[in-house]
């Protein structure tokens, strides 16, 4: 097995950049910081491609199965002799795949930002945060230790917080960043407790060991965790469910998705990187990382499946009604991640049944490209019209041709039109769903159609619809903004043809997939119909949308209000937690607990006033007390005390 330790440099380079720019950026690299960051990231990208090549084509395989390789490991914090946090690097197909995705997309975003963020006051800070995020994300995907995952998990959370709140003087941005952090933090609590449970029963935090121990059915560890129960549910289920909650939080699964749309307050490239391609899929990655354990517990997988499917549908419905283009994209992201989730849910660990797993990873892979492309495109558009609202757009196809083409490709890809990337991955997912669970399959199919519809609603209302009233003020954008669009567009076309199933599968051994035309007919036709509908409604300005909205009535209203999830959360926090828990506690502390302490003081003072009559100033009463004292002592010690 060859030496992969050079992989350490992939995350370390961004870290170094973060430190340098974070500390000295303001002073010394005011304008050059963008270039520096980009170059560094280019380096890591190259390294990760090398690593990918080495792993996939040179020496990753041992007799037909891709190995899990621990490239590097040292004990960071030892809790007890066997339980410890080790900083390690695990290398297996999915981590390598994620490595490539993260570095590549991040690179694109870096390049794009060069133009997009030009002239920002906190340019250096921006790049520092980007590098920080990239570092954390890479660390996350490379983690070989469950707790290490949790650490980087928190780090990506905070860097996303920082980037969403990048425009810190915008109250809405601040609110959004806080929301994002707190909601995910809440989910992380589940993750943490899940870790505690699994770690306790398996007696380790190291992922590989943990998987070994918890998948060996007759091992003491497994029996103990499977038999031990709480509220009639086995500890295994508890642990995995809690961990899944953590994942759901990061991946914006229902009902923890509310932070994602608001997160769009951040700069658009950031949304492209964090909230489309990389961080939000961390939840999927987490489940995939622990998939062997998940596959031991059908009930959890069912939960995963239904949550994923429902989120996919819900998001798609909402997306049809949003008017802020970034929010539309956000909901589409959520919906796509829902796909990945239930694909995992319907999958099994080994062989043919592992299709779902592979499909999910594949979709994750392709989605990264076209979704980031969509966001960057949207970024370009916003950069051009200075607004997120559809109504301010329209007829931009002539003004920004490249963006237009790229965006169109992306839309086709996400809609799943052959031969674009999205088609292949989505096919596999539908296939997997079809083979395991028809209901899910139906939902998936319908969602696919919806996806096509709202994506093209977006596309038309941006680039067609009414004629543009924007006189071409400042071109389409700098080269640095166009270049990523082009590259990503090529990817969106190309990556679908990668024989993904040969590389990334649940059990590491290659999986033969066959796309049969018959199966594809249904989804593709549906999709095309949806596109046509969208074209009919939005290609030219008309009153059909209004009519349709009226026709759906309540549903439309509810959907456009995101099914009142935000209101619900607001109600819980503002109306329940603060007034019913926080305020009483504060009150109790001020008045009861502290009151007791003060009461003691008051009592003492009162006492001292009470007995002051003793000191009457009359010498005779003194003498009387004197004699009384003697009498008392005499009585006490001559008669009573014996």
């Amino acid at each position: 097995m060859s030496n992969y330790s050079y992989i350490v440099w992939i995350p370390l380079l961004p870290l170094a950049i973060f430190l340098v720019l974070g500390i000295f950026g303001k002073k010394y690299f005011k304008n050059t910081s963008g270039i520096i960051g980009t170059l560094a990231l280019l380096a890591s990208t190259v390294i990760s491609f090398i690593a990918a090549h080495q792993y996939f084509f040179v020496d990753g395989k041992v007799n037909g199965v891709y190995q899990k390789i621990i490239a590097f490991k040292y004990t960071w914090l030892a809790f007890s002799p066997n339980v410890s946090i080790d900083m390690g690097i695990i290398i297996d197909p999915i981590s390598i795949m994620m490595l490539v995705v993260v570095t590549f997309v991040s690179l694109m975003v870096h390049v794009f930002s060069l133009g997009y963020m030009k002239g920002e006051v906190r340019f250096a800070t921006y790049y520092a945060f980007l590098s920080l995020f990239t570092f954390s994300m890479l660390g996350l995907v490379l983690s070989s230790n469950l707790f290490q995952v949790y650490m980087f998990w928190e780090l990506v959370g905070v860097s996303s917080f920082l980037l969403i709140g990048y425009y810190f003087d915008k109250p809405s941005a601040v609110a959004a960043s806080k929301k994002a952090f707190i909601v995910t933090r809440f989910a992380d609590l589940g993750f943490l407790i899940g870790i505690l449970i699994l770690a306790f029963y398996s007696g380790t935090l190291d992922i590989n060991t943990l998987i070994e121990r918890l998948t060996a059915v007759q091992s003491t560890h497994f029996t103990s965790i499977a038999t031990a129960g709480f509220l009639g549910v086995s500890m295994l289920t508890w642990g995995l469910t809690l961990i899944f909650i953590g994942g759901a939080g990061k991946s914006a699964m229902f009902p923890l998705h509310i932070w994602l749309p608001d997160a769009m307050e951040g700069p658009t490239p950031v949304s492209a990187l964090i909230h489309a391609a990389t961080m939000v899929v961390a939840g999927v990655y987490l489940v995939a990382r622990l998939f062997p354990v998940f596959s031991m517990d059908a009930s959890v997988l069912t939960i995963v499946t239904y949550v994923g499917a429902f989120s996919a549908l819900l998001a798609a419905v909402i997306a049809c009604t949003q008017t802020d283009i970034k929010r539309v994209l956000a909901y589409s992201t959520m919906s796509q991640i829902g796909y990945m989730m239930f694909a995992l849910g319907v999958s099994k660990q080994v062989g043919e049944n592992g299709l779902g797993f592979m499909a999910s990873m594949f979709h994750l892979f392709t989605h990264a490209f076209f979704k980031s492309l969509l966001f960057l495109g949207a970024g370009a558009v916003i950069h051009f019209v200075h607004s997120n609202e559809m109504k301010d757009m329209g007829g931009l196809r002539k003004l920004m041709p490249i963006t237009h083409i790229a965006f169109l490709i992306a839309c086709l890809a996400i809609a799943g039109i052959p031969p674009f990337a999205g088609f292949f991955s989505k096919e596999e997912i539908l296939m997997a769903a079809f083979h395991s669970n028809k209901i899910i399959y139906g939902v998936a199919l319908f969602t696919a159609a919806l996806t096509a519809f709202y994506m093209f609603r977006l596309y038309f209302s941006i680039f067609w619809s009414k004629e543009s009233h924007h006189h071409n003020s400042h071109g389409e954008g700098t080269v640095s903004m166009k270049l990523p669009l082009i590259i990503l567009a090529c990817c969106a076309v190309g990556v679908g043809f990668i024989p993904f199933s040969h590389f990334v599968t649940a059990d590491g051994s290659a999986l033969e997939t066959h796309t049969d035309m018959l199966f594809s007919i249904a989804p593709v036709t549906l999709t095309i119909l949806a596109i046509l509908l969208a074209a009919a409604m939005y290609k030219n300005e008309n009153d059909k949308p209004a009519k349709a909205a009226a026709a759906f009535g309540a549903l439309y209203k509810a959907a456009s209000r995101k099914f009142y999830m935000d209101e619900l959360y607001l109600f819980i926090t503002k109306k329940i937690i603060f007034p019913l828990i926080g305020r009483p506690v504060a009150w109790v502390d001020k008045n009861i607990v502290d009151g007791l302490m003060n009461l003691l003081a008051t009592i003492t003072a009162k006492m001292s006033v009470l007995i002051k009559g003793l000191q009457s100033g009359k010498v005779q009463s003194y003498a009387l007390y004197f004699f009384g004292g003697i009498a008392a002592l005499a009585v006490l010690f001559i008669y009573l005390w014996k």
Partner: protein
Amino acid sequence: MNLSLLILLPLVTAVVILFCKGLKQVRSVALAGSVIQLLASCFLLVAYWKEKNAGNHSPMLFESDNVWFTALNIHYHIGVDGISIAMILLTASVVVAGILVSWTMEKLSKEFFFLLVLLSMGAYGFFISLDLFTLFFFLEIAVIPKFLLIGIWGSGKKEYSAMKLALMLMAGSALVFVGLMGIYYQTHSYDIMQISQMHIPLEVQKFFFPFAFVGFGIFAALFPFHTWVPDGHASAPTAASMFLAGISMKLGGYGCLRVATFLMPEAAHAYSWIIILLATIAIIYGAFATMMQTDLKYINAYSSVSHCGFVILGIGMLTQTSINGAVLQMVSHGLMTALFFAAIGMIYSRTHTRMVAQLGGLLKVMPFISTIFVIAGLCSLGLPGFSGFVAEMTVFMGSWQNPDGWYRLATILACASIVVTAVYILRAAGKTVMGPISNEYAVLTDATWNEKLAAAILVIGIVLIGVAPFLINQLIAPGTENIMQQVGKLITQK
């Protein structure tokens, strides 16, 4: 090395300060003294490693034992293990930082710095004492300076807070005193190491453990005796708040560990459920109470209550890891909260308000201060890479190792507090450093060199622990092992 140096240096500094004239001399002397002290502590650390690597496995190093009061068998017995060294380092760095942030203390500067140094001397003495009498002696030395510091240089209802603090802490030491008496008349010795060799009968332990533990607990903001913390911290001048939260609350935790738990382990075992109950309440309750505060200092004070709950929890769980965690949490919280108070002080000295509602957008005008403010906040909500994460996770892990189901529940509840922590920290930070800035603050200036230096020292500490916890872990592990042997030995006996 000779540990008495750690007491002599501050003493000398204090005396020299008395003969200084004017703020400039005073502060430079104070700074010099504290820096030398810091260096000495670092040297102590090095020496400690040398000894350990030389294979010296005695529980206490650099011991020196001189008879003080022959008649009463009171000794001046000092020595250190990893835990005390960690505490000493913490104290030293907080002292330096505290002196730096009060660099421009015009009012009665001589007295101010004198008291600061005196307070630090008490802390050092406390941490190196191996004799209960001297321990108690230094514990009380550290109380009265706080009263004066808060009462004279404080703000708000300072007299009330100062009096409250002094009285509650004195009540604490009164309880401790009763505990000491019990131990003494059981063993006829004040020497911690000797006593740990003898076995105190269980009934006796059960009677006196509460006195000792609650007594020290009051110092460590044990619920429901924490009420001095908010008022005291809020009214104190910046440096004093830093010392209070950073140093003197640690006296309590250390005492709970070194005296109560180490000398009366069986009772600790017997009462652990109460301790854990109180600790859990303190954690949750403190967190929620913090959520409702509007004054930055109150926010940090209440969060200190919540965070010190982790210390108590770790001690109560009585597993090696959890006690490690408790010590880690002490150090981490000391640095973090000192940093927090420093930042608040810097903000207050410029904006003249601590009300969250009145602040906003400071990041624009004072990026440095805002950054350390955010760093302190992130550390306190347990972000990886900062000390808070390491400490809290160690406590959780350790607590979870305790097999009792109810203790597990307590652990989970304690974990739940991290969410609430996130809520109040983000509210504070979001409102203070982010958001639109009002014009009156638009002209304010950023930190000066001394403030930057102070913050840097603390941040370095925080990050060092956060990034390389194995260092401090190796440092304190022998000490906690030693304590656990006590616990384990006596509990297996039964």
